[in-house]
């Protein structure tokens, strides 16, 4: 254009590209907990299925990785893999202990295209470790979203009867007096959640806490609204 007209032009255009959308779903035994109603794992299933479905609707390639202490199932992102993703989501069984470091490292090594990666877990780990594991994906140029799923009993600790509490993942039993430990528990949990939120947001990683007592559509809508606002700002 400059040769013909000897004038500079700026050409603007918009183009839609097909992105990879990969769901990383924690299926450790701690996810198989429900104080009442739906369990965390089921809640995570619905969330993963919804997000995969939405992504496929906008022609993204969808895939899923289920993890515990290692990768359990891996469906690479593809335009044709929605059914497989849904099948994996439907058939998965909880098991193993939760750990993000090893599986996320392997995922980072396995993905070569920049992807949107949604990590769904209860994040029972030190916040620094969580950030370290997630940052590997982030540093490879992926758009990483972290969804923490918690049962209301894990937040409020409403128990009133002294009993032995059994860790779902390790099987360890501890005598607990909830009335005496409730306040301390809540404080520790709040500190944990605050630290996670602070670290992830500071590192430009989207973080959202889902409470299984709240309807999934409501939680999802809140998240997407916030994501849309953030997108406009960028």
């Amino acid at each position: 254009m400059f040769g013909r007209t000897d004038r500079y032009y700026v050409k603007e255009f918009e183009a839609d590209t097909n992105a990879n959308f990969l769901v990383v779903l924690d299926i450790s035994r701690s996810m198989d907990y429900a104080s009442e109603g739906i369990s965390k794992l089921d809640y995570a299933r619905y969330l993963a299925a919804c997000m995969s479905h939405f992504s496929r609707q906008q022609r993204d390639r969808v895939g899923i990785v289920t993890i515990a202490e290692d990768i359990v199932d891996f469906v690479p992102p593809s335009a044709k893999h929605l059914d497989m993703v849904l099948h994996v989501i439907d058939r998965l069984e909880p098991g193993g202990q939760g750990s993000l470091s090893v599986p996320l490292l392997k995922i980072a090594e396995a993905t070569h295209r920049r992807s949107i990666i949604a990590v769904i877990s209860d994040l029972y780990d030190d916040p620094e470790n969580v950030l370290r594991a997630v940052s590997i994906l982030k540093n490879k140029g992926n758009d990483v979203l972290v969804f923490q799923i918690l049962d209301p009993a894990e937040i409020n600790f409403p128990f009133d009867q002294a009993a032995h509490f059994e860790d779902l993942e390790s099987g360890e039993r501890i005598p607990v007096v909830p009335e005496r430990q409730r306040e301390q528990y809540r404080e520790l949990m709040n500190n944990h959640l605050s630290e996670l939120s602070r670290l992830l947001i500071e590192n430009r990683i989207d973080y959202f806490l889902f409470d299984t007592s709240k309807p999934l559509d409501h939680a999802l809508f809140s998240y997407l609204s916030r994501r849309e606002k953030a997108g406009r700002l960028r």
Partner: protein
Amino acid sequence: MGFSFLAPVFLAGVAAIAIPIIIHLTHRERKEAIAFPSLMFVRKIPYRTVRRQKIRHWLLFLMRSLAVILVVAAFARPLLDSSTQAVAAFSTARELVILLDRSHSMAYGDRWSRAVDATRRTVNGIGPDDRATLILFAERADAVSQPTADRAVLQAAIDAAELSSGVTRYGPALQLAREIVERTDRPRSEVVLISDFQKSGWDPRQAVRLPEGAEFTIVNLSDAEAANLAVIDAAVLRTRSGGRESAIISARFINSSGMALEDVRASLIIDGQAVQEQAVNVEAGGSASLQFAPVVVPGRPVRGVVRAGDDALSGDNSFHFVIEPEQPIRVLIVEPRAAGPDHSLFLRRALSIGSRPGFEVEVRRVTRLGPGDVDGRSVVILNDAPFPDGEAGRRLRALVEDGGGLLVALGRRNPPGVWPEGSTALLPASFGGPVERASGGGGTLSYLDYDHPVFNLFRTPRSGDFSAARFFRYRMMQSGEGSRELARFDDGDAALVEGRLGAGAVLVWASDFENFWNDLAVQPVFLPFTHEIVKHLAGYREPDSWMAVGQVVDLSLVPELAADELPEDAELLVAGPTGGNTVISPAEDSWYVRLDEPGFYEVGLAGDGDDRSAVLAANLDPVESDLTALDPEEMVGAVVARTEAGAAAAPIITLSAEDLERRQALWWYLLAGAAVLLLAETLISNRVTRATN
């Protein structure tokens, strides 16, 4: 003023307060573990050491404890003291008469303790202006306290009250109560009758009507089902075999319960040792008899007891009796000089038969009668023989004057002319020549004095026919002053005349006993007739093998004590069955002793040197063993005065504790209070739980 409880045993349930305490102090650990996603925030803390140290919610604890107490108190069936209620209801002063039944039937089960409790409650309820009198009654009524407002005096009287062995009689107690009520100056009066309402003690014809306006309150202590077996009689039948005297004991039992008693062991105890035991079956509401095997009677009084059953009224399960050795009547038959060998055949034969009493008969010719032959005799029969003269005659007169008996038969050999001069004056009738009645079949006896002991036995029809005897001759008799004609012939002549000579009796029979002038000797009535004559002349009284409690015994009539031979300053010591001693002083004319309790009384001379003694057996009145209860309303209707309109003048309040408790129904309020407390506790605890969460 205060509470009492019908079922205080339930108060032990207060221990249930420990339950909320335990709940508060020990937070029990759940047995199953609670699964939790991660315990990274849960610290390990041993919790028991902390939890058991203190009660956290005092309000909840107090509410739970109070609820438990209320429930327990409700089950214990509380009641406000009845008399307290009365005081609250009526403020005016009253005259209170408490009639406490202490008859033997009150010993059944716990009746007596319940009666004492009811009496105490009544006394506790008297107001400051009230006045009360306590009357104990059985067959008689005794006011054990004067009308008083002092509870201490009344309580002391209650403490001293004891059961008696007497029978129930309501009449005297009600009469005494009426007298007190009639004399009172109090505006109100109330009679409280505390009894088991034994039906046998109530005679409507002797009902005492209280003054108009007097309240009549009953405390009914009867039991719906009162089972009682009683031994009510033990008859002693004497037999003699081989020169040894034996006794056969026949016992009688009654069963006043509604259930048949089978195979009840009845034992015969002689002098403290069980010698026989047999089983007896008694139908419900029926009676039964049992005969034990003969027991040998030694020559001394024997104490016997028949014992059977083991029920709530034990006093009538034993029956006491005494078997006295036989004491024969010593009879001397005096025959005329020309008597044949069988002159007294019929008399001897008749008197040789008999065991109650036996007769010891000796026969002497009047010509051979020595002074010593008369001594020691109870009865002398001049069988067609004249009065002996000389020393024998004087001894005979002395014998009669000292209480002995003389029977004179005026036969063919006994005209007045053969009698020593002046001796016929000892007879109650003068006599003369014989009266011929051979023509026309002979005379008969047309009048007999059945009120006299000699003929009393023949009083009832078909108990002896004297009219069959034919009298062909008899001597004309003219009754003297002070004499009594006991029998007359059909022509009006005296046949048997009785007179007194000193302390003794003289009977004159106008004919003979030989079957010569008459045929009475071959008539069936001859044997009992002669027995009755001799027993009467000897002053014989059949010894009582037992007596009834409440009976007053005249010790002067007890043969063993030989009252007429006692020294003037002698004192009798009466030892009761339970050890209480009573001293009787015959010198002061007090020969009487009252038998107050069942068992054996031992009577002896106080002091040393005289071993005369007697044993008396006393038994409860069988009437008291019948525990059938009277309908109290029947008594109330007869005792309470009615107004002209026919309505009861005084309110009738049944102070039975059960009725009072039912009427007050305090348990309902207690349970309602407990329910409200538990509801409030639930609300508060939920609120506390929510706040904690």
